[in-house]
């Protein structure tokens, strides 16, 4: 059983609530354990808010894709956006930004993501950022409706 949901998200912070609620709904449907759900929700907020805040600076509305995939042994979160290139894996720890320099975006959030999920990767493909987060957890079968 693999169940994937694609969510179109605008670069508007209020849209994070849409994808957050869909993850909640999937957790109920597939019995994702509460602890794993909480960790996924925090990681999702961190990565999606980073894209919203830092991928575009032209003041225009943009859309990007969040894909949530529920697998028997894990949940994957993938974010595809065509904003400027930013590899979160190279972001320094928030406590180690050079003196006098502004912290690079997402330092604290990215530090937390690395602790919260079991897999965190980034690729730049055809001018798009592709960020993947995976949380290992035992997932149940869908509730029959």
């Amino acid at each position, binding site marked *: 059983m693999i169940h994937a949901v694609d969510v179109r998200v605008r670069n508007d912070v209020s849209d*994070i609530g849409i994808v957050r609620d869909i993850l909640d709904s999937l957790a109920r449907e597939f019995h994702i354990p509460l602890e794993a759900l909480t960790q996924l929700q925090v990681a999702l907020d961190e990565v999606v808010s980073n894209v919203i805040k830092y991928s575009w600076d032209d003041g225009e509305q943009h859309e990007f894709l969040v894909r949530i995939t529920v697998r028997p042994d894990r949940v994957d979160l993938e974010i595809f956006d065509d904003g400027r290139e930013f590899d979160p894996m190279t972001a320094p720890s928030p406590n180690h930004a050079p003196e006098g320099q502004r912290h690079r975006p997402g330092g604290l959030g990215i530090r937390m993501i690395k602790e919260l999920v079991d897999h965190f990767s980034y690729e730049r493909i055809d001018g798009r950022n592709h960020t993947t987060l995976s949380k290992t957890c035992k997932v149940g079968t869908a509730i029959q409706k």
Partner: protein
Amino acid sequence: MNALSIVQTRAGDVCIVTLSGRIDSTNANDVKDELTRLISSGEKSILVDLGAVRYLTSAAFRALLVATHEADHQAANFALCSLGGQVRELFEMGGLLEVFAIHNSREEALKQLGGSVLRAP
């Protein structure tokens, strides 16, 4: 209980702000605005009770850090209490347990922030 709730009560000179639900990018500014408003209004002891918070993200931590700095500037006491298991883990992940004044319980915090308050009728 998921939606953010901010409830303000008072124990003598201490203003207690009880947060519940989840604090994330969509609502962290509400927390920051309320805390900085209280500090600007002249509150000198503010205790934020996180016992009913389900989780918080780095946006929430930034809101609490802004409030801490603002309290420092205004010579006000600013403390947190009642961190639950997963919430405490999130503070630990962010390396923030040492950054804030954190008390195990509301009672313990009130003793520190306003001992005389507890003896008031």
